[in-house]
């Protein structure tokens, strides 16, 4: 078990390093000299500031060394300073991380609360009308652009009915974006839950249980639920990653003040240190979550525990 955990932690760490290096390389994708590209956007672009930036980035060094330097800075928690406003990128991102996480968690909760029961229903009624209905909803669900759904939600619940606000950070403001995210991703959860349960229901011991004459409800709740939930745990990690991706757009639609909105603002302003920081922080979040889920899975699943 300990071996499993340390292996996962190491892999996650390696992934994060890889992401840092990648985002370090990305700045060299920008056409032209990166410092000019960066500082062309800044009022405070005095020659000294540019020279300072050059030295910091080690621009006289070969590219691989520059990237190394960037990675070295980032590992020490130094993401550089934003071009707009000259503030610490790490601080700007950290400030908004709680907002992003609370929205993601709320969105995930909605997705699970709707998706899991639907998935169960579909699996139990496999091949029947309820199953088809759930699966049709699921396909529809993944086909609706989240930002479009978000706009419709704002129109209906904020502008028309005046029930719920947007663009703040109190608990009332989180409802609409969380619902939008949840509704978009519940379809995914429903499908995965259905698959997981169907797989479990096909196992020999379930058949045995049925053969022994146990009532269907008992079979489902006692024998099938637990193993199915274990597979759902792995699914949660995956859904969480996708949800974080979709959240970037949703934060902008609702003017929710998370790092997704910060990032898009930075992208429109071409604030490169900020964008690099966003990529690293966002990717790290995804990596950490999936690592935790993997470890949790290890704890839950006896087969994994033995390894």
């Amino acid at each position: 078990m300990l071996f499993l955990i340390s292996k996962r932690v190491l892999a996650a760490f390696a992934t994060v390093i890889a992401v840092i290096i990648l985002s370090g390389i990305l700045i060299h994708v920008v056409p032209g000299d990166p410092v000019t590209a960066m500082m062309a956007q800044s009022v405070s672009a005095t020659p000294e500031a540019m020279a300072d930036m050059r030295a910091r980035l080690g621009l006289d060094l070969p590219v691989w060394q520059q990237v190394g330097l960037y990675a070295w800075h980032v590992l020490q928690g130094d993401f550089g300073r934003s071009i707009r406003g000259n503030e610490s990128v790490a601080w700007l991102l950290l400030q908004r991380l709680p907002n992003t996480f609370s929205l993601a968690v709320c969105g995930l909760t909605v997705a699970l609360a709707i998706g899991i029961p639907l998935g169960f229903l579909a699996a139990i009624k496999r091949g029947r009308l309820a199953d088809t209905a759930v699966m049709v909803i699921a396909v529809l669900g993944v086909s609706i652009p989240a930002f479009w759904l978000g706009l419709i939600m704002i129109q209906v619940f904020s502008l028309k009915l005046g029930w719920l606000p947007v663009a703040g950070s109190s608990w009332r403001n989180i409802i609409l974006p969380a619902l939008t995210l949840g509704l978009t991703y519940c379809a995914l959860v429903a499908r995965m839950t259905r698959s997981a349960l169907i797989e479990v229901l096909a196992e020999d011991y379930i058949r045995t249980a049925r053969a022994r004459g146990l009532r269907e409800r008992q079979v489902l709740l006692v024998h099938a639920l637990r193993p199915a939930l274990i597979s759902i745990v792995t699914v949660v990690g995956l859904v969480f990653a996708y949800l974080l991706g979709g959240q970037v757009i949703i934060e902008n639609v609702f003017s929710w003040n998370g790092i997704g909105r910060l990032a898009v603002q930075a992208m429109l302003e071409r604030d490169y240190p900020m964008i690099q920081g966003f990529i690293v922080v966002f990717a790290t979040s995804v990596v950490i979550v999936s690592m935790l889920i993997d470890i949790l899975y290890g704890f839950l699943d006896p087969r994994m525990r033995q390894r």
Partner: protein
Amino acid sequence: MTVATATIKPRRRRMPVTVILGLGLAVVIAAASLLAPYLTPFDPMRMAAGPRLAAPSIAHPFGTDEFGRDLLSRVLTGGRLSLGIGIAAVVSGLVVGGLLGLLAAFAGRAVEAVLLRVVDVLYSFPDTLIALALVAFLGPGIENATLAIAISLVPFYARVTYGLAAAERAKPYIEAARLAGINSGRLVRVHVMPNIGQSLIVMGTLGFSSAILSAAGLSFLGLGVQPPSPEWGAILASGRNYITKAPWILIFPGLAICLTVLSFNLIGDSLRDLVDPRRKGRP
């Protein structure tokens, strides 16, 4: 992009209703987009083609936008853009991803280990995020958005191709061919490709719906196709402030995205179970 789901063996080898439905929808959308220049009642860019913000009517079945442009014409023409971006991104993503996948499967242990590790890492990130990160550095615009989306699809296609190729690799005839001295390149071209090609095309349709969604999302954020191009996401972006006054500006392009994505999801989903290597690979 959607994630693989499990099903037990396909029940009958008959084309499911959903596939027919999806195919039908896709054909209609593709035809409407292709024939857009002949079908559109107005030049999609022409301002004051009708009154501003006119509700749907016979003259303007989808209504008009804030400049009095005919929305039906814009949505149809936008289809060409959206589908074009989707196709370009999927084809290039599939080619690059496919080659990487084949390379991983047939270029030896070391290459396999390294490539797989990299692909798996990238695959763990949502593709919208990868596209967004790339476009942030490449800059906005239709070409850059397409390139970014194509690259974001590479990990998915590489993974899928590798899975299919690895399954193929284990088959006895490959072993036999190898023993007969046929080199890897020829092996792949002559034996592996024909066998997995069909499956790859099916997987292609899955990436397509995700590419359309990514393109619309990027344009909506102002990072993809720029106005006045009638790309669906761009129409939504420039019309969003009219949500109360002229909701049709948002409804029709939004529906167009939904239906297109839906059609490819219907096709892909139903066929995927037949070809998904991760399903096949499971004990």
